[in-house]
């Protein structure tokens, strides 16, 4: 279809609906966000240009913001670390020559279908101090239960565990797909050369699985930084501010406190953290592949 010499109108027409919505609701807001972050947008005053004051305020005076940043760092490390390890482990197990593979695959994937709200409700009920299944289970083996979501450190742990439970099936499937795309002849060749199981893993599986692992790391990092739904319903950011994350900070600042400029500035901070980490991970992955 490249025979026409003059510029054709038709491909632009096909692109138009998607491109218009994309521009209005992604491109323009992304640019608008930079602009908003430079203003004091209190609903009681006219917008006032304040330069970088919002950013200075966030990092020097805004205790809640700094705490949300720290909480998020802890969450991301636990969540992404756990996700990668569990996804690889589950992916490997599901790749074995076993019966009921379809069943096991569905079992691990099923929670991915559930909405974050439902996931949070289910676990809130399980972790309930008095009526929850976990404490009852612990009691039956002689361990005293805890009010899990009311102890700051335990609530941090459980938000990670709950999010892992809900999403690991998705990442395990990515690993599984990566494993299945490795040609069987490579293993046969390795066997002929007398490679042990461990050597096969080290020199065949691992290098060829690297792109899939990198995908898991990047996707789960972006998602972890954007965490909101699960935690908002499960703990509401509490107890106190123990599980208060950055998206909740942005949501609260923008829509409950009506401090739009500050919210936009915080959004930009989050945006640049995600951008930076994604680029770094990508480059590290490239380097790894080169070796």
């Amino acid at each position, binding site marked *: 279809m490249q025979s026409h010499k003059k510029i054709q109108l038709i491909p632009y027409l096909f692109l138009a609906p998607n*491109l218009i919505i994309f521009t209005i609701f992604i491109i323009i807001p992304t640019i608008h966000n930079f602009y908003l972050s430079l203003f004091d947008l209190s609903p009681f005053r006219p917008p006032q240009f304040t330069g970088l004051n919002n950013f200075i305020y966030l990092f020097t005076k805004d205790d809640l913001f700094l705490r949300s940043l720290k909480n998020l760092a802890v969450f991301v490390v636990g969540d992404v670390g756990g996700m990668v390890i569990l996804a690889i482990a589950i992916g490997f197990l599901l790749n074995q020559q076993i019966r009921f593979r379809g069943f096991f695959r569905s079992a691990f994937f099923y929670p991915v279908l559930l*909405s974050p709200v439902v996931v949070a409700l289910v676990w809130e009920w399980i972790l309930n101090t008095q009526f929850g299944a976990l404490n009852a289970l612990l009691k039956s083996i002689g361990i005293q239960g805890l009010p899990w979501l009311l102890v700051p450190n335990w609530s941090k742990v459980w938000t990670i565990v709950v999010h892992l439970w809900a999403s690991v099936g998705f990442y395990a499937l990515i690993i599984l797909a990566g494993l299945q795309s490795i040609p069987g002849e490579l293993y046969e060749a390795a066997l002929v050369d007398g490679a042990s199981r461990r050597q096969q893993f080290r020199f065949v599986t691992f290098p060829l699985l690297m792109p899939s692992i990198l995908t898991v790391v990047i996707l789960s990092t972006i998602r972890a930084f954007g965490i909101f739904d699960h935690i908002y319903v499960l703990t509401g950011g509490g107890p106190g501010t123990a599980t208060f994350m950055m998206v909740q900070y942005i949501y609260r600042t923008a829509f409950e406190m009506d401090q739009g400029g500050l919210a936009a500035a915080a959004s930009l901070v989050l945006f640049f953290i995600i951008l930076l980490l994604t680029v770094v991970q990508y480059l590290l992955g490239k380097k790894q592949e080169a070796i």
Partner: protein
Amino acid sequence: MKKKGSLFFNLSVYTILTFGSLIMFLPVLWIALSSFKGLEEIYKIPPTFFPKRWIITNFTGALQQFPFLLYLWNSIFVTIMATAITLLINSMAAFALSKYEFPGKNAIFITMLGTLMIPLQVIMLPVYLMIARLGMANSLWGIIIPPAATPTGVFILRQYMLTISDELIDAAKIDGAKDFRIYAQIILPLTKPALAVLTIFSIMWRWNDFLWPLIVINQEKYFTLQLALARFQGELVTDWHYVLAMTVMSVLPITAVFAFLQRYLVQGIASTGLKG
């Protein structure tokens, strides 16, 4: 790992997988079973697993106490409309990006891919301001439209359409087919597997969406199921027997979709998980 493992190895694999599956399944199963328990049994210490007495009044009660059907309808409306619009505009864009050469093509495609790194969470305020300016705040269309032009969807479909041979198109052209007919009658039918994948993704995204509806909607008559569930759970005196019943009812449709289409879904994650 194509060679048969030892007995011990296989045994451990089965044990771990079974144990893991239980951890994944039991919480949901327990909630589902609990939705058939009476209030006094729900609050029993220690909790029971299977209901002592099966009742369905939690479900009938929830339907009477809350406008559950309204929330259900809102969720269905949002999910179906959003998925239809997403499929249509994404496939049209993917068609242009895979089967035409035109100035700006690469720039557009790369910009779209770049925005994959900008989750809605990062631009929620300016997107909301845009919605408000366009008069779509507090409406179901406000939920539906903004995420419809998903770059993920365009990407999945474009990658698939690239594999469709151009000879088919040339042959159709010789027969006098116009561009829109080529799109609708040749490309779309051949793109079915990728469209199926995007359909399932879109249904999952939209049915389960929470943050965006939370921002857009503040009137109860526009609540989706997720908003309603979160609201009732957050109330001071939570009617847990109703919340459990509504939770189960909200999960049923998505479970049915999964049961029918899981083959495509697994393929889809496999193909999108692979880097292009």
